[in-house]
């Protein structure tokens, strides 16, 4: 279980998050949504200990601030929105950096095969010897995802769930690879891990996420499944506009038609 209580984050004198309560369960894909600048990424950074925060983050029953960096690296992997790379590493060298976190014997035995498996998982099987800097933005993002997968290949460790944090993982991807990445998060959750992703695409989120947390201006507007969160009241509170909501097959999940966005502020 991942529990955050009364999280506040300030950058300089500006408070960005005003006391957020947040829960994510293992076995579930949790999505954080909300308009630009509402503090989604900041929340993710607080949850991963990347940013100083007020309040408490409890991960697998332990206070995050009391867990060593080495243990944190075993418990959770983080994919940032963008990760610029210094020096001419090859793709497989970048993916191998994921092994650095060191998860004991399970990984040691598979050090040679894991990077290649992770690359295949993100559809870059033949890219191992290419230079990272030569790839397109979307391909680079998938290489980093493979690196994080290398770090988090098993969804649990010593009987405890592991956590996958993804910050806008599909932002620069084409529709086929968006689906691949969503499937990866889904599978990770299905194997008992916890996946937490900051998302922008509301329809993609409705189709894939179990639990949705909707934010606005550093506060949680609503949380629950897509049916609960995607209401006209919530959407207009968060985004300042009303959108036609339908539930078309095959998923019968709420669907927001982009052309129906009306009366934005």
């Amino acid at each position, binding site marked *: 279980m991942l529990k955050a209580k009364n999280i506040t984050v300030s950058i300089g004198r500006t408070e960005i998050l005003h006391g957020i309560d947040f829960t994510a369960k293992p076995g579930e894909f949790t999505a954080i949504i909300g308009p630009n600048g509402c503090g989604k990424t900041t929340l993710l*950074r607080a949850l*991963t*200990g*990347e940013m100083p925060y007020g309040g408490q983050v409890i991960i697998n029953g332990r206070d995050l601030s009391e867990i060593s*960096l*080495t243990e*944190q*690296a*075993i418990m*959770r*992997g*983080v994919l*940032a929105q963008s*990760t*610029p*790379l*210094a*020096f*001419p*590493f*090859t793709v*497989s*060298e*970048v993916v191998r*950096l*994921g092994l*650095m*976190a*060191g998860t004991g014997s399970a990984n040691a035995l598979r*050090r*040679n*095969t894991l990077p*290649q498996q992770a690359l295949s998982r993100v559809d870059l099987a033949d890219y*191992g*010897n290419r230079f990272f800097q030569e790839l397109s933005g979307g391909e680079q993002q998938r290489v980093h995802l493979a690196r994080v997968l290398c*770090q988090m290949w098993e969804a649990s460790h010593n009987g405890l769930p592991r956590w996958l944090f993804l910050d806008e993982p599909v932002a620069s991807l084409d529709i086929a690879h968006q689906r691949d990445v969503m499937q990866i998060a889904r599978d990770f959750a299905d194997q008992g891990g916890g996946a937490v992703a900051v998302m922008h695409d509301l329809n993609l989120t409705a189709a894939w996420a179990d639990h949705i947390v909707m934010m606005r201006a550093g506060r949680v507007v609503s949380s629950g499944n897509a049916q609960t969160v995607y209401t006209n009241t919530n959407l207009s509170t968060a985004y300042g506009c009303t959108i036609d909501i339908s539930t078309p097959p095959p998923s019968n999940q709420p669907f927001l038609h982009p052309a129906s966005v009306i009366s934005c502020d």
Partner: protein
Amino acid sequence: MTAISEMSEALSPAHEHSFDRSILARRMTVALLVALACTSYLSLTWGAAGTSAFTVFTDLLQGHEITLRDRVVLFDIRLPRLLMGILVGASLAVSGALMQGLFRNPLADPGLVGVSAGAGLGAISAIVLAGSLPTALAALFGYYLVPLAAFLGGWASTLVLYRVATRRGQTSVATMLLAGIALGALSGAVSGVLTYKADDAQLRDLTFWGMGSLAGATWSKLMIAGPIILLAISTAPFLGRGLNGLALGEAAARHLGVHVQRVKGLAILSVAAAIGAAVAVSGGIGFIGIVVPHLLRLSTGPDHRYLLPNAALLGAILLLLADIISRTVIAPAELPIGIVTATLGSPVFLWILLRRRGVLDM
């Protein structure tokens, strides 16, 4: 055992289709060790005095007497100079590689960004102001005063540079290079004032020291600088993994379990100590720190676990070669070694700039 299992791992079928530069890097280490042995032999043999190291060694082995002249040339002049060359070359190259890893940029070099100038200012202050120190204090530090002051100067410059050029874990190349110019100019100006204040004896010391040369190598200097340099570059094996993580930025490194602050602090201390000691005994020698890591990254990749030890070896080799050139080109006179490394190194630096023109402002 570890080496064997690593080798078998490296040779396992999983690698057949994927080209692994770490094997190449390990072979490079072996090749560089052999090359260093050859260069060391050349350095012992070639010199203004026609003493042949080979003849002296065979004479010694066969129990023959060797002349006093040969003994002095070989053991009191060439041998300390050889060892000093190895240590200084290694410390310049490793410091370059460490700084580049720390700043996440291949253009960071202690000579270019003012760290050597800061260390130089420290050394000059110690030479000129030693007389005005309380006698007890001066006696306490003794011969270590100059290297210690150089270390402090280098450390302060590195810290200031890092604070100015790095924001939220990202280094701006332009800011780093410009801040380096400012730091270098400031150190140069203060050094100038100190030189102006120096008396005749101190001026001789300064001139001799400032030439950037291994010619002043003696056993006593070696005893002072050697341990500092060895200690500083022996931290490198503990930094390789962390600097690899840092190539992804501070946040991603942290998520991989790297103790970022610890790695940064240790890297800065090591650079300051290595550069401080090197500058204290041999003056400012440029470009080794930028050329060596660059050549190695091109040939065997940027993995710091191999880059750092290989840089130590190649740095030593290149400095010994530069030293051989410096003392044979216009023999029996000597060219300052700084001139040789700058002549060979600056075109390489320009070449790196040309290749990176498009991404310099990232």
